[in-house]
């Protein structure tokens, strides 16, 4: 007992010293006013700080939404230019090449280790990205990302949105901005942070297990499709967008044989989006709907198809609070209903029935203390048709003993930006239910809470 007390006292002493050292370092960083602005390529192009476009990256302010809507082309910096004249083309090239770099390093620990593996893992880096992000001309710009993934030990194509935009038109006497987008992820073209591609959580680990079931439009097709679409914003209120997608397997052979890939789009998969926004000086509200329809043949390009239709609703409200030095409160939510008819999977023995549905609810509230600190609480809930073949039984960690896709939980995130281009985050993800149950969900004795994770991230963007 005395040994325990000595050990306990020593541990407390060590913790006190460690916390003291961390507090001193933190205080020094907080008290040191950043001398450099965030300098990713959009910032270099516009001469504006990151905070002009982001409450906190990647959350867009109204100006950030307008910058994206206008095709990432707004610039205040010198360009190499020539006028369009007679039968000669014009030119407008940024003098500064729009290249940016992102470096993430992280530490992740789950409540209980995944059997046969160590718990508490550093990733140095977790990933690193190169961005070609900026104006390509007077009406064309890009957000283009390639990412090195340390687990795969290779670079791969990441989120991409290349767009043409024209903001100089009027329709029914009101200003209209319209454009064309080439992108590789449904909702990546969107302007709000209530839809999946840019939704909460804004950072996440790639170590802890995640629920098996996800709706199609909720990231299942990210970077696995290529789409051509159009969008328009009328009178700063009504936003309409639509894209048609075809399968484009990164790393897969061309022409696509379909084998080895869960989704092979037959024909085209249409994505649609409609949103209404209203704003005052300190309030911004958006309500909208989006969705997608896809027919796909798993592991094939012919024969029977699986059919999916996703209907989704979302909202976002940002409230700037002048009494608190313009702190911002953001509240966002989305509901996705997926109806599917899995004829091909059923015929292939991968499902006990053809018809399924999946409901996804996600909501979060975030408070931004200036541009330096933000705290977010989010909840999520997934329910749907139980199917012991579709949601595999007998697989430890990733399986579901009762064949149910049901998962629910909460996420707490605290982020600190000592400079606008440096992000230090802590995130806790807690599960109330995982792949169908809270206890022994995989039939191998693992509880949902065993997948709870603590995640520390340091992100540098320059």
């Amino acid at each position, binding site marked *: 007992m005395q040994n325990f007390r000595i050990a306990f006292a020593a541990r407390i002493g060590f913790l006190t010293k460690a916390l003291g050292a961390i507090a001193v370092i933190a205080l020094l960083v907080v008290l040191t006013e950043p001398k450099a602005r965030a300098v990713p390529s959009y910032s270099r192009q516009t001469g504006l700080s990151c905070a002009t476009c982001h409450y906190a990256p990647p959350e867009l302010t109204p100006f950030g939404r307008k910058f994206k809507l206008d095709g990432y082309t*707004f610039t*205040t910096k010198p360009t190499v230019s020539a006028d369009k004249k007679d039968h000669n083309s014009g030119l407008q090239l940024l003098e500064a090449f729009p290249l940016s770099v992102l470096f993430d390093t992280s530490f992740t620990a789950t409540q209980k280790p995944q059997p046969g593996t160590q718990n508490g893992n550093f990733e140095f880096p977790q990933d690193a990205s190169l961005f070609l992000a900026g104006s390509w001309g007077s009406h064309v710009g890009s957000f283009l990302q390639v990412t090195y993934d340390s687990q795969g030990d290779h670079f791969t194509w990441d989120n991409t949105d290349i767009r043409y935009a024209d*903001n100089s*038109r009027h329709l029914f006497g009101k200003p209209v901005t319209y454009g064309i987008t080439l992108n590789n992820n449904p909702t990546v073209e969107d302007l709000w942070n209530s839809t999946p591609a840019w939704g909460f959580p804004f950072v996440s680990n790639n170590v802890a297990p995640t629920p098996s079931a996800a709706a199609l439009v909720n990231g299942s097709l990210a970077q696995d499709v290529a789409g051509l679409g159009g969008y328009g914003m009328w009178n700063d209120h009504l936003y309409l967008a639509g894209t*048609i997608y075809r399968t484009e397997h990164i790393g897969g052979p061309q022409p696509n044989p379909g084998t080895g890939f869960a989704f092979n789009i037959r024909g085209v998969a249409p994505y649609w989006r409609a949103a209404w926004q209203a704003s005052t000086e300190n309030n911004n509200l958006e309500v909208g709907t989006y969705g997608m329809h896809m027919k796909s043949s798993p592991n094939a390009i012919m024969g029977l198809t699986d059919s999916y239709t996703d209907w989704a609703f979302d909202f976002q409200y940002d409230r700037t609070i002048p009494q608190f030095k313009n702190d911002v409160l953001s509240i966002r939510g989305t509901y996705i209903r997926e109806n599917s008819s899995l004829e091909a999977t059923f015929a292939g023995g991968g499902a006990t029935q053809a018809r399924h549905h999946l409901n996804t609810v996600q909501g979060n509230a975030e408070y931004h203390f200036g541009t330096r600190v933000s705290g977010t609480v989010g909840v999520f809930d997934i329910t749907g048709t139980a199917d012991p073949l579709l949601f595999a039984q007998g697989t430890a960690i990733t399986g579901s003993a009762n064949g149910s896709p049901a998962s629910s939980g909460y996420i707490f995130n605290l982020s600190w930006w000592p400079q606008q281009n440096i992000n230090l985050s802590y995130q806790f993800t807690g599960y109330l239910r995982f792949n169908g149950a809270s206890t022994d969900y995989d039939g191998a004795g693992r509880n949902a809470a065993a997948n709870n994770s603590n995640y520390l991230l340091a992100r540098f963007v320059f």
Partner: protein
Amino acid sequence: MGKRVEGKRENQCNESSRVSHSQALICLIFLALASSVRAQSDATKAYAANCAICHSANGSGDASAGKALKAKDLRSPEVQKISDADISDVITKGKGQMPAFGSKLSADTIKSLVAYVRKLPKK
């Protein structure tokens, strides 16, 4: 076997036909949109490219981006009473949250923008 090959070709034809129909539909929608919108004169291009993002097409600054940044209503007496030289100076050097455009825009373009701002209350 022959039938299966034929069926495969038919299937591929149908699929490529669906793709081309969809692409044609998208093109038609955009052509229709482009033809229905009213083109602005060349004189407004510099304003649309550089100023409208915050100050709105009509100068009011009442779009969401302008409201959030508290952009001035360029039609207001408060702005219109400022001298040409001072407006030119603000465009060139920036002021408050407004960035400087002096390294991008020529003196002639800035002069034309000042003239454009003067015309905004009459539009």
